């Protein structure tokens, strides 16, 4: 007997997809955090070692990766606050869908502003 019955996809709509996105962004952020503590620890090796590795973060390809990382962090942050509202606010469960569109809207605005700032630094020198 197969472990997963064929032909069933749990279509939980906004609730399920926001849960999936929360998991994926969470894992991405966690792995970056491990790397980030390691790269910062190089300040204890030598100033030159730290500056050399941090220089890698400033190239354009990494600059785009940082945009993705910040996108993941901002979504996880806003959606996390939504999860808290669903859990602790009396009307949270009733408005969870509307709150998700609020999260997506705020995410888009934040990312638009951050992209302008960050990409002008990465590609324009300032």
């Amino acid at each position, binding site marked *: 007997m197969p472990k997963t019955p064929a032909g069933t996809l749990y279509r939980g709509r906004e609730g399920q997809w926001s849960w999936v996105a929360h998991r994926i962004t969470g894992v991405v952020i966690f792995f970056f955090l491990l790397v980030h503590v390691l790269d910062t*620890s190089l300040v204890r090796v030598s100033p030159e070692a730290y500056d050399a590795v941090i220089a890698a973060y400033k190239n354009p390809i990494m600059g785009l990766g940082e945009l993705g990382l910040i996108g993941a962090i901002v979504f996880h942050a806003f959606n996390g606050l939504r999860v808290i509202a669903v859990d602790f606010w009396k009307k949270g469960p009733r408005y969870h869908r509307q709150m998700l569109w609020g999260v997506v809207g705020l995410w888009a605005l934040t990312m638009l502003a951050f992209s302008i700032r960050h990409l002008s630094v990465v590609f324009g020198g300032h």
Partner: protein
Amino acid sequence: MAVPTVESPRSGRVSPGYSRSRSSRGNFEMGAWLFMRLSGVVLVVMIFVHLWTSMVAGDGISQVDFGFVAGKWASPVWQIWDLVMLWLAMLHGTNGVRTIINDYAEKNSTRMWLKGVLYTATVVIILLGTLVIFTFDPCPVIDGVAHVASYCPTA
């Protein structure tokens, strides 16, 4: 003659023999659930400020170098800020990944191994980060050569 009463399941006065969950595990998972929400709120604030100071304010990411870190950690406020952020973020992330391992790893042995690796990484990273924050030297002397920077005393 008194009629024996049966307490409602939610009264908290159910005799232990009839309890559905062994209480210690239930309490741990409840604590973990609550910790995710409490640490989450704090982390949103701390990480947004962290990102603002290093990636938006000033010259953005191009300003980040050894001197930038030295300037920040010259203040105990930023040392404590980064310390609290490190501990909360690592514990929050570790508990999240623990949940994911429990959800998807089906064999007991797989779960045990994955969690062993996870907890080892967590302990190493938290200890390393804490040590780095408290033993940081803005003007290190390496192999007899002193680091030259405007904020370092000249010999």
